[in-house]
C-alpha cells in the first residue's frame, strides 16, 4: 500500500514539477500576503514579533487551500480519476499518495515563507528553528489530511473551488490556533515546555484526522 501511495505522490509531484503553476502561485501569494499584512497594521503600535505568528499561520492556511484545489482538480481532465478508481490500488493508498504530494507542496511553501517572514519582519528565528520546524510539520500534516479529503469532495460539486475553504476553514481552527500560539511563545523567547499543551492538541488532531480522513476517503470515490 505504501508503495502504491508513493507512486501516486510521485505522479502528482511530477505533474507539479513540470508545470510549476500551483506552487509558484501559492508562493507568490504567500509573499504578497506577508507584505500586505505588514502594511495593514500600524508597525509602530504593534511590534512585528506580535504580528508574525498570526500572519504566518493565516498565510499557510490560505496558500494550502490554494494548492489543495489542484490535488483532485488535476484528475478531472479526461476523467483521469476514473482510471485511478479502476486501477488495482487501495482507495486508502490513493488518499495517502495524494496527501503525501500535498504535504510536500505545503512544506515547500513553508520553507520559503518562514524565512521570508523572518526577513521582512526582522525576527531572530535562528534560535527557534528546530521547534518551529516541528510545529510547521505537525500543522501541515493535519492541514493536508483534512484538505485532501475535502478537495476530493469539492471537485464533484457545482461550487468546486468556492466550497473547499468553506468546508475546510472551520476544521483548520484547532490547527491554526495551537500553531500560532506556540509560535508566539517561541518567538517571545519562552521555553518549549510552555508550548507543550498546544503541541499536544496538534499531535492528537493529526492522529485522529489522518485516520478518520483515510477511512472516510473511499466513500467520496464510489461510482
Amino acid at each position, binding site marked *: 500500500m505504501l508503495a502504491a501511495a508513493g507512486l501516486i505522490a510521485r505522479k502528482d509531484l511530477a505533474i507539479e514539477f513540470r508545470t510549476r503553476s500551483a506552487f509558484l502561485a501559492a508562493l507568490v501569494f504567500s509573499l504578497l500576503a506577508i507584505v500586505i499584512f505588514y502594511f495593514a497594521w500600524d508597525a509602530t503600535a504593534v511590534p512585528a514579533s506580535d504580528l508574525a505568528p498570526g500572519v504566518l499561520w493565516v498565510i499557510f492556511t490560505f496558500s494550502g487551500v490554494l494548492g489543495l484545489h489542484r490535488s483532485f482538480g488535476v484528475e478531472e481532465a479526461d476523467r483521469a480519476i476514473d482510471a485511478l478508481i479502476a486501477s488495482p490500488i487501495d482507495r486508502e493508498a490513493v488518499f495517502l499518495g495524494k496527501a503525501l504530494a500535498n504535504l510536500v507542496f505545503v512544506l515547500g511553501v513553508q520553507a520559503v515563507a518562514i524565512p521570508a517572514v523572518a526577513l521582512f519582519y526582522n525576527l531572530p528565528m535562528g534560535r527557534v528553528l528546530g521547534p518551529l520546524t516541528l510545529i510547521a510539520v505537525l500543522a501541515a500534516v493535519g492541514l493536508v489530511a483534512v484538505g485532501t479529503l475535502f478537495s476530493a469532495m469539492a471537485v464533484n*460539486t457545482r461550487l468546486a473551488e468556492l*466550497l473547499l475553504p468553506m*468546508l475546510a476553514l472551520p*476544521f483548520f481552527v*484547532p490547527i491554526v490556533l495551537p500553531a500560532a500560539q506556540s509560535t508566539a511563545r517561541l518567538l517571545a523567547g519562552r521555553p518549549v515546555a510552555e508550548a507543550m499543551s498546544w503541541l499536544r*492538541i496538534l499531535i492528537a488532531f493529526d492522529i485522529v484526522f489522518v485516520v478518520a480522513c483515510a477511512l*472516510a476517503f473511499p466513500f*467520496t470515490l464510489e461510482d
Partner: protein
Amino acid sequence: MTAPPPPAAHRDRFDWLLTVAVLAVAGTMVRAIAFTPIEANQGAAQKIFYIHAPSAFVGLYIAFGLVAVAGALYLWLRDERLDRIAASSAEVGVVFTTVVLITGPIWGKPIWGTWWTWDARLTLTLFLWFVYLGYLILRGAIDDASVRARYSAVLGVLGALLVPFIHLSVYLFRTLHPMPIVLKPSSPSLPPEMLTTFFLALASFTLLFVALLRARYRLATVLDALVDEEAAEPSSMGTLRAEPLR
C-alpha cells in the same frame, strides 16, 4: 424508486404535533415571563436564559448529534431515509443554533457589557454553526442524490469529531461563560420555581425540535418522490419541474 408515492393527504394534513409544540413553547414563555421570579442580580435580562439554554441544548447536542449518528448509519446501511433525517436535523439545528447566537449577545450586552467575547463556548458554538452552514451549502451544490448523501454523511461525522478539538483549543483561552448551573455534580443552584420553568422550557423546545424535524422530513420524502417520479416519466410531468431537494 423504492419509496411508495407520497399520499396526497400528507401535504394538507393538519400538523397536530407542530401545533402542540408551538403552544407548549408559548405556554412556557408565558410562565417564564409572568410567573417565574425575577433574578436578583441580573434582573429581567436573565429571562432570556429560558430561550437561550434550551435552544443550545436542542441545537448543539440533539440536532448535531443526530446529524453525525444518522450520517454514520447511512454510510453503513445506505438507507436514504437516514440521509433525510440527517439533512432535516442539520437544517433545524442551524435554526436553533442561530437563536442561540442571537439571544446570547442580547443577554451579554447588559450583563457582560459586551455583545461578543472570544470565550470558549461562544467560539465553539460559532464554529459549529459555520460547519453546519457548510453542510447545508455542500448539499445544495450536489445534484446526484447518492453522492450528496455520502458526502454530507462524511462531513456530518467529521464535524462531530471536530467538536472536542475546537473545544480544547479555545478552552486554553480563558472562559467568561457562566459555569453550568443545572448539570453539575452538586445539586442545581436554581431556585425551584426557576428550575421548573427551565425544565419546562427544555421539554417544550425538544418537542418543537421533534415537530420541526418531522415536518421537514415529510417534505423531504415528498420532494424526493417527486424527483423520482419525474425521472421515471419525464414527459408525463409536463411543465411541473421539481427541484431536487438538497
